[in-house]
């Protein structure tokens, strides 16, 4: 294996060794969301004429799991190794900033997609399979996970303490995920909050991802793709720049 491949492998091995916590636990959490919200709201909320609420909820929960776990992977790896000092083993190597980026973001995509697939496999048993355009599903899952993986790199470099990381996760990632249409269609919101939702890049990831399941979405998947792609490029550029200058890791 080359240098970046080793770092990628090590990052995948790192989360896989604690798979109960990093893969199984988020799958269980998503299933609980589905059972509780699906049970309570199935007969009360109708979003698309032909699709029940529980079925509508599945893609949102899958994508939410993809995004949250992709972010958790790169961010937690960096902050842990910074605080424990073991990041020095990577800092002392000839690995370029691109190698770091590809390895950290790539492993985040693997974890995000793996957890998402797990959530899909378990939840689909409750709702049946809807897969109108699988390619859209794959594209949005990978792009969304990469975007959150890159955001995790930025957060992991920036945070100096676990509570700073927790703040990033709880006050930014979590609200943006929950307010992106995981549990509802933004058409059900008042017009002001619809406008606000359009400023949230997470909305486009989930809406485009959901299009792949039902062939229905709040906006065109092409528009979502363009916005998610642009966001990925911008966030990646920032992450690569911070890695290149050794932001908070090379003194």
């Amino acid at each position, binding site marked *: *294996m*080359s*240098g970046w*491949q*080793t*770092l990628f*492998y*090590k990052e995948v*091995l*790192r989360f896989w*060794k*604690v798979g109960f916590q990093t893969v199984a636990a988020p799958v269980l959490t998503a299933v609980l969301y589905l059972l509780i919200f699906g049970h309570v709201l199935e007969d009360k909320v109708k979003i698309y004429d032909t699709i029940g609420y529980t079925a509508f909820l599945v893609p949102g929960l899958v994508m939410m799991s993809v995004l949250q776990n992709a972010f958790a992977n790169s961010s937690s790896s960096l902050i842990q*190794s910074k605080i*424990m*000092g*073991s990041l*020095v*083993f*990577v*800092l*002392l*190597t*000839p*690995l*370029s900033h691109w190698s770091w980026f590809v390895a950290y973001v790539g492993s985040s995509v693997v974890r995000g997609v793996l957890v998402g697939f797990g959530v899909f496999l378990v939840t689909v048993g409750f709702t049946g399979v809807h897969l109108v355009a699988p390619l859209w599903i794959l594209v949005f899952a990978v792009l969304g996970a990469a975007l959150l993986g890159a955001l995790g790199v930025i957060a992991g470099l920036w945070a100096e303490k676990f509570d700073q990381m927790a703040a990033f996760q709880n006050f930014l990632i979590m609200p943006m995920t929950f307010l992106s249409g995981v549990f509802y269609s933004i058409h059900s919101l008042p017009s002001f909050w619809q406008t606000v939702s359009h400023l949230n890049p997470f909305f486009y990831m989930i809406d485009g991802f959901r299009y792949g399941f039902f062939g229905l979405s709040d906006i065109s998947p092409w528009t979502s793709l363009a916005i998610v792609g642009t966001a990925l490029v911008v966030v990646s550029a920032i992450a690569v720049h911070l890695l290149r200058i050794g932001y908070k890791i*090379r*003194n």
Partner: protein
Amino acid sequence: MPAISFQSVSKTYAGSRSGTSPFRALDDVSFDIAEGEFFGLLGPNGAGKTSLISILAGLSRASSGRVTVHGHDVQSDSAQARRKLGVVPQELVFDPFFNVREALRIQSGYFGVRNNEAWIDELLDSLGLADKANSNMRQLSGGMKRRVLVAQALVHRPPVIVLDEPTAGVDVELRQTLWQFIAKLNKQGHTVLLTTHYLEEAEALCTRIGMLKQGRMVALAETSELLKSASSNVLRFKVDRELPPALARTARVTGRIVQLPAQGALEIEQYLAAVRQAGLTVEDVEIRKADLEDVFLQVMAAERNPDALVA
């Protein structure tokens, strides 16, 4: 071409928001280390040793100056410079997710070294880690973790080995194992840069020594030259009470043990006479040759840079 070259290296740490003023950790430090040399970098805590090694390893950037490893600039040609370096960090750090063999395989892979099992096995054997190869890093004692750090630094067979206080807080057995192994690598042509507070180790191992004080190189010479430059003898004895102030100024006192630098018999007689005159009881008198610790203390005690020691 030198194995390592420090050229007018300075490092200033910016003051913090809480009001601490900027701190100059290194001040125009220049010296070369030749290929195959065993070089000792000494200095009290805060002298700048770790700052210098951090700059060499690419963990930190110099405020000014240039550092090269086998001719490769550690900033502009960092990948090549790092390939040539194996650094044992001072802190006892480890990755808790992996066992010893995995940690070594991964470190090897970072450098793109494939099919490295034979060398990994040799490192495990040489450092007494063979029976711990499949143990998780968390299960190892401090000394064992230190051995793994050494193995990780050597896993890509670097021509230059940097050991930043590798024997701090470790037992005698590890010290002996480590020094035998490092001495063997040095004989095979590896360059070694060592920082340590154990001056007897430095005296025994290093062919040349540099001493840092407050960020400045205050002594740089062959170990034998440094020893010659010191007072040739040391008078050592035990006393029952405090020394008179005139003697205390020049003495090295450890509990009841007093050590005084002395050039010859006359000076020794004068010291003993002064002690008797002060009414102290003297026991276990001995005269020994000056060692590196005596040189170190003399250099550190000097007000100004002793240019005579910089060769």
